């Protein structure tokens, strides 16, 4: 367990849409745009834009996260690409 799991939602929100480098257990290293961090499990969801225009999504388990470092500020173009991700469809099914 690291400091990461103790962060408040407002602290976690500061990382959203930023480019981050995550060091995890067993010397694993991940880089990508941070879409969200689950406030319950501290799991991080990163997005990478691939050469062919497609996306790759990586989840890193909160218990395995050692450090998270911001390496780049997201600009509005990144934000525009990330904001609608997963937000379309099924909305009605989960509205109270």
């Amino acid at each position, binding site marked *: 367990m690291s400091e990461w799991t103790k962060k408040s939602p407002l602290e976690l929100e500061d990382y959203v849409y930023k480019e981050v480098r995550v060091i995890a257990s067993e010397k694993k290293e991940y880089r990508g745009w941070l879409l969200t961090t689950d406030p319950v*499990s501290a799991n991080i969801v990163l997005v990478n834009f691939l050469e062919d225009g497609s996306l790759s999504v990586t989840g890193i388990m909160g218990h395995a996260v050692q450090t998270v470092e911001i390496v780049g500020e997201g600009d509005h173009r990144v934000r525009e690409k990330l904001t609608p991700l997963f937000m379309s469809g099924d909305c009605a099914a989960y509205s109270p």
Partner: protein
Amino acid sequence: EAPGSQECPVGQQSQESREQRARAALRERYLRSLLAMVGRQVRFTLHEGVHVTAHFGATDLDVANFYVSQLQTPIGIQAEALLRCSDIISYTFEP
């Protein structure tokens, strides 16, 4: 504590509701990312250098288990399986 930052009830309330809004937004996006993973081929990196791929099916509320199908393990295919979140370091999929 910053000097002179006397908290009034209104300030406290808005701090609390800001926190609630942030928590709800983060959680909703996370749950949606899980839903987007349903039916996808997912690559899991587990502890001890173990890598497996599987079709993601579902996860439980506390996100303590991943239900997957067609799990390709180093020793063969298991039609249905539960992966423990505590065994997992990361997972990757293409939405």
